[in-house]
């Protein structure tokens, strides 16, 4: 009846996961009950769960990402603590639990923290920057989000019911085959990642179509803000490589469930084929994450230097160059496979060459600041910290790209330090910078500067204190994923790294305090004009928070940096452009199909993990019915009356007029 599921799946004998998951269950239940008591559920259902508004979906993605970032960070703290105490000692985490933790840490950080945050930003910002009212397929967008949430749910359920994979964040066979990992851990991994991966693929399709087919009038390709270019490149990579992930995971699933021989070590299976396939997805994946991060930094450097982005076209070229070459470097993840000198050399060269594109970008950002009036607000601090951190991470990457050197530090803590250096320094710093930068556009008030800057300094210093020792022990020969160490000499390094984690924890606490303080002081931090940073692209032309239809009248773009141009004209002439003739607006109607699909996907995934076949069939039928019901609806759009559009836009214009009056009153243009 319940397949492999029984009471023994609950970890009664392991206090750490048991207590953690009990706390999580209590907190989640508490939140659900509190929301119900307050009577907020109808509002949440109507305005959030069934929404197809790209901004709200973006915000929900970011919320999911931040929650999972905390979960992944908790795993990281446990690993650092274990390695600092388990030197010639067993430590406090048994090996099978430790292995689950490092697997969960990687899986959660990449699939459920970094990806949702990156996609959240693309969702929120890109249509605003393109001057349009939504993405190409708003309902599909909602389906994508809820499928991602479904995957995240499954990963977290594994904490309480059953176990997670012990195979690392990429389940290498033959270890991940049924013969060597008979438990449900790898199955949790497979279905969670498969479900969220399908969501991501649909996001990629959605965004490529949006950028290429849905820009406002006048928004030619070479007038798009840099973030839209990087969104396009990142989405193109998603479309090209996520199908590889889907196929590869499906193959491993067939191996595990039906005894196929794709990756087994007997009967003609080929484990190295898994390494090739998974990294043909996995390497481009890091560029899926880092390209939008580059886009965020491009926006910030330009805005906070008060200058157009230096070398815009070379930036576009570098982005597309990285987009293509990212798919030609995968073999550097296993130079030790034995492909031979010629193959290794080719991939070593392609890996080094991709750094050229990144180098172009670094110089462009530096030259953007050169001669500008640089303002050191929090987003700019994260960006400067990024340049410093990322350049060093990039250089250790070029070192690893040399096959003979890679043979020595392959699979060592040096590698671990390297990719944290680029992903934390590149992606995570960008996400924090972006949160700071676009927060007022989402919620109508800025985040507290003082706490933001404090958090930045703790994060930057904490990062280096944590990972410098790991570089050193990696060079000294410490391999990754060790549950205990037997080299006494590494103890000081492990302890310094633990101190670094402590500093990072203080940074994280500062960020929480920043959020709380900002909410308390929101009236003081209110963004009245909708343009808090003196921005240059179209999202700053809207009020904060942006109305659900984004633009009362879709803009007509006449040059690069469209909003900067409009603003310059208005300040110079001291008048806004004449009030437009407001028309009713058609907006897509809400849809619960995303939520229903994800519900049935979660049920199906859980049933397949535990071999509850009848439930899996029911789940699939449910998902199919949800789609047919969606197909059957007759109303796809509703009309926003012209009066409402006019009311919202007049408020926006009043705020801008007040700004112009202040400029005049204070005589800023007089001299």
């Amino acid at each position: 009846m319940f397949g492999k599921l029984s009471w023994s799946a609950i970890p009664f004998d392991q206090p750490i996961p048991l207590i953690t998951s009990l706390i999580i269950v209590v907190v989640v239940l508490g939140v659900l009950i509190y929301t119900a008591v307050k009577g907020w559920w109808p509002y949440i259902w109507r305005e959030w769960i069934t929404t197809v508004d790209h901004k709200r979906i973006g915000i929900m993605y970011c919320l999911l990402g931040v929650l999972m970032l905390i979960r992944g960070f908790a795993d990281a703290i446990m690993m650092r603590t274990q390695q600092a105490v388990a030197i010639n000692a067993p430590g406090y985490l048994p090996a099978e639990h430790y292995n689950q933790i490092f697997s969960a840490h990687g899986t959660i950080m990449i699939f459920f923290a970094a990806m949702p945050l990156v996609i959240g930003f693309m969702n929120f910002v890109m249509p605003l920057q393109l001057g349009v009212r939504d993405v190409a397929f708003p309902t599909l967008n909602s389906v994508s989000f809820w499928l991602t949430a479904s995957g995240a749910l499954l990963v977290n359920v594994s904490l309480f019911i059953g176990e997670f994979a012990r195979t690392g964040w990429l389940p290498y066979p033959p270890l991940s085959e049924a013969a060597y990992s008979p438990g449900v851990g790898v199955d949790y991994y497979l279905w969670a990642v498969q479900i969220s991966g399908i969501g991501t693929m649909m996001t990629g399709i959605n965004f490529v179509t949006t950028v290429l087919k849905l820009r406002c009038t006048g928004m030619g390709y070479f007038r798009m803000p840099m973030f839209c270019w990087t969104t396009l490149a990142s989405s193109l990579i998603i479309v090209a490589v996520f199908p590889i992930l889907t196929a590869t995971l499906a193959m491993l699933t067939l191996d595990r469930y039906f005894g196929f021989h794709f990756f087994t070590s007997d009967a003609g299976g080929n484990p190295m084929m898994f390494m090739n396939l998974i990294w043909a997805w996995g390497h481009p994946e890091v560029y899926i994450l880092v390209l939008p991060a580059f886009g965020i930094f491009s926006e910030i450097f330009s805005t906070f230097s008060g200058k157009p982005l230096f070398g815009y076209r070379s930036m576009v070229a570098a982005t597309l160059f990285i987009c293509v070459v990212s798919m030609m470097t995968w073999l550097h993840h296993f130079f030790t496979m034995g492909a031979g000198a010629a193959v290794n050399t080719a991939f070593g060269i392609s890996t080094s060459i991709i750094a050229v594109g990144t180098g172009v970008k670094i110089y462009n950002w530096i030259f953007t600041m050169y001669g500008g009036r640089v303002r050191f607000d929090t987003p700019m601090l994260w960006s400067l910290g990024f340049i410093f951190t990322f350049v060093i991470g990039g250089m250790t990457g070029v070192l690893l790209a040399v096959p003979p050197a890679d043979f020595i530090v392959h699979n060592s803590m040096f590698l671990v330090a390297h990719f944290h250096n680029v992903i934390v320094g590149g992606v995570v710093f960008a996400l924090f910078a972006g949160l700071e930068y676009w927060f007022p556009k989402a919620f109508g008030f800025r985040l507290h500067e003082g706490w933001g800057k404090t958090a930045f300094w703790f994060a930057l210093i904490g990062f280096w204190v944590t990972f410098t020792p790991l570089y050193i022990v990696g060079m000294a020969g410490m391999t990754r994923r060790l549950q205990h160490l037997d080299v006494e000499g590494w103890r000081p390094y492990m302890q310094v790294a633990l101190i670094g984690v402590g500093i990072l924890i203080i940074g994280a606490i500062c960020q929480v305090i920043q959020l709380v303080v900002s909410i308390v002081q929101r009236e003081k931090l209110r963004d009245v004009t909708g343009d808090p940073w003196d921005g240059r692209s179209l999202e700053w032309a809207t009020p904060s928070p942006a109305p659900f239809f984004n633009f009362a009248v879709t803009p007509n773009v006449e040059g690069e940096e469209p909003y900067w141009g409009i603003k310059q004209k208005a300040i110079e002439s001291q008048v806004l452009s004449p009030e437009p003739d407001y028309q009713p607006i058609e907006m897509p109607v809400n849809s619960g199909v995303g939520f229903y699909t994800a519900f049935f996907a979660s049920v199906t995934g859980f049933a397949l993990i535990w071999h509850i076949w009848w439930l899996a069939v029911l789940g699939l039928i449910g998902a199919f019915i949800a789609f047919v019901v969606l197909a059957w609806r007759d109303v796809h759009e509703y009309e926003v009356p012209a009066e409402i559009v006019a009311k919202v836009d007049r408020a926006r214009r009043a705020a801008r007029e007040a700004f112009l009056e202040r400029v005049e009153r204070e005589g800023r243009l007089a001299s």
Partner: protein
Amino acid sequence: MSNVDFPASVEAIRRRREEPGQAGHHDHGGPVAGAGHGDTGPATKRIIVGYGFWIFLLSDIVMFSCFFATYAVLQHATAGGPGIRQIVELPRVEWETAFLLMSSFTCGLSFAATNARNVLWTQIFLVITGLLGLGFVLLEVQEFIGLTQQGIIPQRSGFLTGFFSLVGTHGLHVSAGLLWLGTMLAQVQVKGFRREIVHRLICFNLFWHALDIVWVGIFTIVYLLGSIG
């Protein structure tokens, strides 16, 4: 709306209004409004839907290429079991190919009827398409059952894993297409040629033709080369 005959001149104007940016049907003097390229503003809904579906098909073909690649890698990993030559039954494959290619043709005819806004002929050709597709799936199922009875199963060797997975993935796609086709029949019958129904018919047509292209690859690489290799 349906079954009303208008002269071609009226039809031509209607179609140009519905899809001003239709590729290949305008003079090449530069970007056209409604096509969504250049700086002429957002594309029409029809272009957006079709374009998005093209992108999906590209991603689907990347997925198939993974199965092709694994088949190529595992082709000779027979582990002492049967090889491709013991599997290929060319007459059956020829029938399968004929069914699928014919179904693509009738699918195209159904869309011609859709363009003429003729419900009856659209439905007739969609049903024929479905029957041909069903014939293909049944032939493939029969093949798989026959092989299983001879003990030729995917669990036997890496090669058989690759073979069954590649051919089976295509078969699953065709089956999913049949399910989709069924819902399209119902939608056309109940709702007629509303805008979104026509868009879905476009997507279905693209999907069905793409499956044909994949089959041509399977036919050539697995069966034809297998029969001579």
